[in-house]
């Protein structure tokens, strides 16, 4: 049996003189510092990806081509997707994992601190490759973030740069996930059984397994693309006995679990915030854990619903339809559990709670429209239209992004020892939720009316809703600068925060002082 002695003095915690300046950040193996690096990187990528979205919406403000050539428009839509998914949302969740997981389980740091450093520092070169691809001959790849062959085989060198960036991003995610899984499995404080872990830890455990399982499949898909492009293979070329649809199968076998990777940590965050501001324990902890695992398993069975118009036979079409509809059940359980937590609680609505409740409202819309899309016959009308764009922005922006805002406001006082400006943060919420809905709700109508995706110009009947969406997008985009201001103001001159910070806060991290010391839980607490 392990003694506290053994755990307290782990080999990687030998005292090291504190480095300063750039070297401090380049060589840090501290989970808090690396968490900060991930979050700063991800917010920078969020602004880059967001600027691309604003360019896209500016072009779509009115019918006709005003600012962008069609090929540049396609490059922007592609890179907006790749940067937001792989550069903004995923690193942000890893950043929160880094900061919070060790504190929440009473560990001194992640299981593999040097691997942690390596995992982060793969990201800036990947980002440079990705953004640099705009300057390659022919520009960045314009095949959509889904990179379907044979269009992606046709693309210029920007596609190859993107493939290498994807490999780097993938390795970063995989080693990060291995680190997270190992930390959760073997660095929990004594007495913290799996069923006593906070939900954020549980959701990250399942997410980590998904990452390890599917990121390599994406890697093999883009490698096959690379060899089809340059080395004479014909995986996706009918001429050589291949099949373009094979790419879609491989891609979505990765791609669908990927979207659960993007949302499960968000679910975990919401499961931390709502009990705190309801001053009540999470309702249905056990079923939350089961639902999370169920979603993790079902994630592997539904990839075909992205391919309903490819020409499946009746059998596969029905199978994917039924399996996809089934995902609504564990997702619903989670939603109901959050409401059950609020029920008969004692609620206050500081910014984290505002974003959490906002999350529930808008994620519900995203979720039910997912059920609509699951109905294969209806999907035939909606596939590749703006209905799908609206659906995934509701789940990923209102879902993942709002949860990231909630998490920032929730934990920033713990990290910095300073409170953020509550009034400004509430303004951030109000502006975000209003402009978000203005931008994306009308896209459901556009999709129903038949407007396809990824077009820089459109027939006149789509003009009014496009104008509304573009105005909303501008509002939503610029509101995020307010978030930046709130965070910077908090870090520099926020008022002192207490150790507990929130009246209803429960969990190991809240037993630490604010700001949390650089090395916390060097001696693990004992959990009863």
């Amino acid at each position, binding site marked *: 049996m*392990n003694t506290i002695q*053994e*755990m307290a003095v*782990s*080999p990687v915690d030998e005292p090291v003189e504190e480095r300063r300046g750039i070297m401090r950040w380049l060589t840090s193996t501290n989970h808090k510092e690396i968490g900060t690096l991930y979050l700063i990187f991800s917010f920078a990528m969020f602004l880059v990806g967001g600027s691309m979205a604003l360019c896209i919406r500016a072009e779509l403000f009115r019918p006709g081509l005003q600012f962008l050539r069609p090929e540049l428009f396609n490059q922007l839509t592609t890179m907006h997707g790749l940067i937001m998914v792989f550069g903004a949302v995923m690193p942000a969740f890893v950043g929160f994992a880094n900061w919070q997981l060790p504190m929440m389980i009473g560990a001194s740091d992640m*299981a*593999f601190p040097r691997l942690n450093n390596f995992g982060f520092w793969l990201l800036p070169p990947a980002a440079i490759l990705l953004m640099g691809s705009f300057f390659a001959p022919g520009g960045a790849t314009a095949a959509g973030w889904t990179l379907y062959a044979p269009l992606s085989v046709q693309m210029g060198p920007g596609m190859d740069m993107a493939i290498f960036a994807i490999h780097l991003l993938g390795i970063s995610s*995989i080693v990060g*996930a*291995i680190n997270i*899984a*190992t930390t959760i*499995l*073997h*660095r929990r404080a004594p007495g913290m059984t799996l069923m006593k872990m906070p939900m954020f830890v549980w959701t990250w455990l399942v997410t980590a397994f998904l990452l*390890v*399982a*599917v*990121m*390599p*499949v*994406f*890697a*093999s*898909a883009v*490698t*096959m693309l690379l060899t089809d492009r340059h080395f004479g293979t014909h*995986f996706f070329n*009918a*001429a050589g*006995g*291949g*099949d373009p649809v*094979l790419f879609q*199968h*491989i891609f979505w*076998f990765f791609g669908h679990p990927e979207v659960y990777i993007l949302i499960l940590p968000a679910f975990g965050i919401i499961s931390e915030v709502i009990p705190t501001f309801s001053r009540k324990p999470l309702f249905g902890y056990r079923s939350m854990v089961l639902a999370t695992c169920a979603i993790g398993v079902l994630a592997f069975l539904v990839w075909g619903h992205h391919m309903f118009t490819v*020409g499946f*036979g009746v059998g596969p079409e029905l199978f994917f339809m039924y399996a996809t509809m089934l995902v609504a059940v564990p997702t619903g359980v989670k939603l109901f559990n959050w409401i059950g937590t609020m029920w008969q609680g004692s609620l206050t609505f500081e910014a984290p709670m505002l974003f959490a409740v906002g999350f529930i409202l808008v994620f519900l819309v995203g979720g039910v429209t997912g059920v609509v899309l699951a109905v294969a016959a209806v999907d035939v009308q909606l596939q590749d239209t703006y209905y799908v764009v609206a659906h995934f922005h509701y789940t990923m922006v209102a879902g993942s992004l709002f949860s990231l805002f909630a998490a920032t406001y929730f934990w920033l006082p713990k990290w910095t020892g300073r409170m953020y400006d509550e009034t400004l943060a509430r303004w951030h919420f109000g502006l975000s939720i209003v402009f978000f809905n203005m931008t994306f709700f009308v896209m459901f109508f556009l999709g129903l009316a038949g407007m396809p995706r990824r077009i820089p110009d459109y027939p006149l009947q789509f003009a009014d809703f496009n104008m509304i969406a573009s105005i909303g997008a501008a509002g939503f985009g610029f509101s995020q600068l307010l978030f930046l201001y709130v965070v910077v103001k908090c870090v520099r001159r926020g008022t002192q925060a207490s150790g507990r910070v929130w009246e209803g806060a429960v969990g190991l991290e809240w037993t630490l002082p604010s700001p949390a010391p650089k090395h916390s839980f060097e001696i693990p607490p004992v959990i009863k």
Partner: protein
Amino acid sequence: MSIATRQRRVFLILIAVAASMFGFGYVLPPLYARVCQLTGFNQLQSADSVSGSARPDADRTVLMQFDSNLRDGLPWNFRATQATAPVHPGQLVQVSYEVSNNSDHAISGQAIASYAPAGAAAYVRKLECFCFSIQTFAAHEVRQMPVIFLIDSSLPRDVSTVTLSYTFFEVPGRQAPAKENTT
């Protein structure tokens, strides 16, 4: 077992999982080809065996349609010599496709077959077909190539029309082995 050992074990297991999933990605193409074969979705590249009882089912007629496609750039004319043929399941049928090479040099190509409805592929048993191998055509050569097939009588009853469509792709720099040329 110490924590460090346990952690190393999990690390190695997960690295192995990641590596196998990368390999799994590469297993998917042959797996996909196999599943397509079994479900009859994509064409079979070799001659089928025909089961003993080949009495044509005279009560049932299936309309076969013959379609042809050329990838742009191939300086050939490629067409079926007959657009349709009514066929009884179990009956041996021969149709021909004609290729004329309009260029002044030899070109090789491979025909890929595709069926509609896609599931019908499993029931179209081809005994001889130019799609089994790469075909080389000399400059200005015009050649008729047969397809000999029969429709298995277990073709589902609700299928009354089957379209057989070939797309010819150029295979640069490859010559067909002389003995496999079908003439």
